């Protein structure tokens, strides 16, 4: 029985390894296959391409045109823009609520906030995508008079709502990990609770809050349905946050279903997926190590 149980536990490790191997296996032809190289190479993915004879070269993602163009930069920029808005939107709310529930909230208020956050985490992303597409996009366009109804900011705000729970949870844990003695020392010196929160608790928990934001970033950049539905899905190489964007995740979701198995396009999409996986994996690994170390340090110095 012991071996059955142990091998079941091994499955979790095996899955992570298999994800690496099998996504890598389908992405590898981008580097090695001569057939794929007839259409696209890594160099072509990162250099400006000619897209119309009279126009200057630029970065274009047009995988189903006569001459397929696979510039990764518009997709990466799209992901970063939507994620940037999401983090900008989510962080104040999530960290503020975490601070309130760990420092100031009476018990009853805390017992409302925590389940509400967990419920927010329980809303499927396709429902948030629907809400952003049908309701939020209209509100925002009417309020701010934007050119495009679906754009990086609309998608980013919905994405922000989706990552509030993770930022809140990790930030609250970090705030709570600050030992009581720190606060008591502050009180003994005559500091007000506000001063204690600002000068003692916040600096002590700051690395944990940074980690929370980083984990939120990792979650947001990989999130698919919301950006697929609310970002407009135009692979643009422009800076304004109110332009439509196409993210890496949405590109995979939108194009994989229609692609020919084994074609250059297919392998490029796996390559984009591999990039996404590596980025989120590293962020999660670092964030988790960081939070763990912080907690040990804080509780260690308390004991």
């Amino acid at each position, binding site marked *: 029985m012991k071996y059955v*149980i142990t091998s079941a536990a091994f499955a979790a*490790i095996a899955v*992570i390894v298999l994800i690496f191997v099998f996504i890598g296996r389908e992405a590898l032809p981008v580097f090695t296959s001569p057939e794929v190289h007839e259409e696209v190479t890594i160099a072509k993915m990162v250099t400006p391409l000619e897209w119309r004879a009279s126009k200057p070269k630029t970065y274009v993602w047009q995988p189903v045109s006569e001459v397929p163009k696979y510039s990764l930069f518009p997709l990466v920029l799209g992901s970063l823009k939507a994620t940037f808005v999401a983090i900008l939107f989510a962080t104040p*709310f999530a960290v503020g609520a975490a601070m309130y529930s760990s420092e100031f909230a009476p018990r009853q208020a805390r017992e409302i906030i925590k389940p509400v956050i967990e419920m927010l985490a329980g809303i499927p992303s*396709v429902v948030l995508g629907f809400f952003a597409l049908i309701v939020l996009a209209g509100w925002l366009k009417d309020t701010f008079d934007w050119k495009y109804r679906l754009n990086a900011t609309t998608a980013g705000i919905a994405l922000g709502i989706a990552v509030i729970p993770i930022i809140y949870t990790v930030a609250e844990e970090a705030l709570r990990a600050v030992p009581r003695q720190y606060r008591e020392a502050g009180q003994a010196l005559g500091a*007000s*609770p506000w001063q204690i929160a600002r000068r003692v608790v916040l600096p002590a928990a700051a690395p944990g809050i940074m980690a929370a934001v980083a984990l939120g970033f990792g979650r947001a950049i990989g999130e698919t349905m919301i950006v697929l539905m609310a970002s407009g899905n135009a692979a643009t190489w422009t800076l304004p946050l109110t332009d439509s964007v196409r993210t890496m995740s949405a590109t995979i979701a939108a194009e994989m279903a229609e692609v020919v198995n084994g074609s250059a396009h297919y392998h490029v999409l796996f390559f984009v997926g591999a990039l996404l996986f590596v980025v989120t994996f590293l962020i999660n*690994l670092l964030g988790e190590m960081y939070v763990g170390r912080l907690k040990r340090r804080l509780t260690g110095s308390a004991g």
Partner: protein
Amino acid sequence: MAEATATTRSVSSSPEPPRETLAQRSRWKRLLSPLPILTGFLAVCVITMLVVILWNIVAGGVGRLTWEFMTGAPTHGMTEGGIFPAIFGTVFLVLLMTIAVIPLGVATAIYLRYYARPDAWFARAVRVAVNNLAGVPAIVFGLFGLGFFIQFVGRGIDNAFFGGALTFGQPAIIWASLTLALLTLPVVIVATEEAMRTIPNDYLEASYALGATRWQTISRVVLPNSLTGILTGGILAVSRGAGEVAPIMFTGAAYFLPYLPKKLNDQFMELGYHVYVMSTQSPDVEATLPVLYSTVLVLLLLTFALNALGVLIRYRLRGRQAV
């Protein structure tokens, strides 16, 4: 104003000298200083977001939520009729997923709690893997399902048993449910482990004192006592799995099917995917909107109600642990 009078009254009625105590002072500063007000306001904002979203969907969808809607098939290019095929597909999908994920998740939790030494490198690696698995984007699971289950396992089965004829090497409900099982594995592990932590050590010691082996103790004492936790894990996994669309988009979900899935290698319709399809691929979104709203409401009821139930049971479990 009212606060000021309240302070004076409490000070004058107290037998102590009229100077406020440290605790009192800190309480009033606590209420009046800007940070609690600001952070409290932000917390209220988060609650408001949830309420606005829920209210909008309930108000928009409740009108059409009839028996006919739940049991009928889509008609008129999805602008009329019901969503029964999508409900059926979702239930079928999460059932298969549950069958796969519960044994694996529970076994892993048992390993972490009762077999592994907590500082052993293997146990630590399992933990890191589980935590990282929880952070892998859903779309990457979709790619993995396509690359591993369909292209590798499915094609392998086809070549070995069906003479290469395309049978399992294509999108199917079995591959979609297995992909979801991997995605929800961390949920089950965490919930089960949490439940096992609440089992008093006395139970285990009593069992060992009676001469029971470790496996007997686990199967007769640990498992029956962590049933609620396993149930919670299952509920949370189902609620999560039923709401994920990205992993099933190219592992088995279909745009529209005139029949219900019967075999493991059939494709299927699914609620979340149906919502996506109706809101982005419909030629006339305005005409689809009423049906769309009700579909979202059904999906939300399914995932949200299950999630709330899971969270509730979990809080009660935690309460038991505190006692």
